[in-house]
């Protein structure tokens, strides 16, 4: 089974077996800490929380490659821009009129840590949690079914939409539509592609709405679930403790900032 637009990596691990809300709470906790605590703490969060969790979930390699792919462009541009344009502080190196400032580099490095911590916490969540399990957990906590449906179906419909667009392009080209050439030509070719795509999608939506109703989507009464999302007392306690710690961190941080 593959889930489009999802990083989910099926593994037999304790992290995978945790309740989705526990993992969501962890990701949220890491993100909050990274935002609230001094920037340099982000590296500690990454090393002491995310790396061990990723190893536990047996997705360390996947996490690093996904996180680096996204974070690296940010890191490079941050280093260049902050290093070159920082106004004050000691100069690390000078090349002609360009000077690299130490403080700028430090700022960039700490910001990269923040990005890395926040990004990798949510990548770790997606790697170890099926999107439908997460949506189920959230709807059991009061998220409207319609919103859960929209999120899940979007994952699946977009690839179908792309393949339909390709079918229409092929069909129109076989009827002699020129889709290549100059800019004006391409813009003119857009209309015969967009109109059938939009119209047929509207028809699809109508039929899919019927299909949903036929599957008792708006049936009154409580729904059940094929998945057994096992939640345990220790996990509940853990989530509440995370929330409590997060609150304490925020309060302490506000107080220390005031007194500073």
């Amino acid at each position, binding site marked *: 089974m593959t889930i489009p637009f999802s990083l989910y990596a099926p593994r037999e691990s304790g992290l995978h077996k945790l309740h989705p809300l526990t993992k969501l709470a962890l990701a949220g906790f890491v993100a909050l800490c990274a935002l609230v605590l001094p920037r340099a703490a982000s590296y500690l969060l990454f090393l002491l929380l995310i790396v061990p969790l990723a190893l536990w979930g047996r997705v360390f390699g996947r996490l690093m490659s996904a996180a680096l792919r996204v974070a690296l462009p940010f890191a490079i541009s941050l280093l260049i821009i902050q290093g070159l344009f920082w106004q004050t502080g000691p100069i690390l190196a000078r090349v002609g009129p360009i000077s690299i400032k130490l403080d700028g580099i430090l700022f960039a490095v700490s910001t990269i840590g923040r990005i890395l911590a926040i990004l990798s916490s949510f990548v770790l969540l997606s790697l170890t949690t099926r999107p439908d399990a997460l949506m189920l957990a959230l709807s059991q906590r009061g998220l409207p079914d319609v919103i859960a449906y929209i999120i*899940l*179906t979007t994952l699946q419909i977009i690839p179908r939409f792309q393949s339909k667009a390709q079918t229409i392009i092929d069909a129109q080209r076989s009827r002699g539509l020129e889709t290549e050439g100059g800019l004006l030509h391409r813009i003119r070719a857009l209309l015969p592609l967009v109109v059938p795509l939009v119209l047929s999608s509207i028809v699809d939506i109508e039929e*899919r709405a019927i*299909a949903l109703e*036929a599957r*008792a989507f*708006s049936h*009154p009464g409580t729904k*059940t679930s094929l998945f*057994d999302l096992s939640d345990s007392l220790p996990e509940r306690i853990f989530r509440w403790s995370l929330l409590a710690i997060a609150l304490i961190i925020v309060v302490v941080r506000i107080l220390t900032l005031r007194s500073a």
Partner: protein
Amino acid sequence: MIDVQNLSFSYAGFPGMALRGITLAMPKGQLCSIVGPNGAGKSTLCYALSGFIPHFYRGVLKGTVRVSGLDVAESSLGELAGAVGIVVQNPFNQITGARFTVFEEVAFGLENLGVPRDEIISRVAESLALTGLDSMHDQSPFALSGGQQQRLAIAAMIAMRPAVLILDEPTSQLDPIGTREVFGVLRRLAADQHTTIVLVEHKLEWVAAYSDRVIAIVRGQIVADGTARDVLTSDLIEEIGVGSTRLTRAARLARAQKLVDSQAALPVTLVQTIDFFEQKDR
């Protein structure tokens, strides 16, 4: 099970009546096929029986439709969903997209109905086995072929065990083997679970072999109603453009050429045809 009284309907924004004065009763466990030319109102009747008319498609509705004890116009689609199942024409658009595997897709309707987990699992496995999809339970529903998606749509409805099942051209994408499987499943549902089945179908040989009853519709009106043999061999059915089975045509030709006794009733199934040519009266 199904009780329709003087039903008329016209779609909002379209002139003319889609259904005119339909009165119809169907007992439990009957497999009734609807035939008729394109635009006769077959799909409209399907929607009216399942509540999508008047709840989804707006228009002017007259008369009453009662299905498994519910007044369709008075009940919400959510209430009707457990009682009436519908499989519509385009198999691709009947995949909800809410679930990632074939197994979960079939389970989706049962989850919405609040069926306990153990029962969901056994019912889904059963309907996947019935429709020959059990080997694909772990695949993405979107990765299936048209015919497999069509069987998936049927499996999803069977699993919900509605008292009334309405199918609008459920075999349009199926090859003869798939068609036979689907008709076999429908026959078994009617016999074993006493499901009332309304089937819109163009494949007349299959209709003739499996239906308890055949209704012909033209321009929104019922023009013939009876056994497959009565309805499908009538001159009327040729006139309205539905045509006849190959078996009926062969027998008609044989009679025209005076190869057989002209008194025998025209056949619609293979067994009847053999008897017809052997000039036996069953």
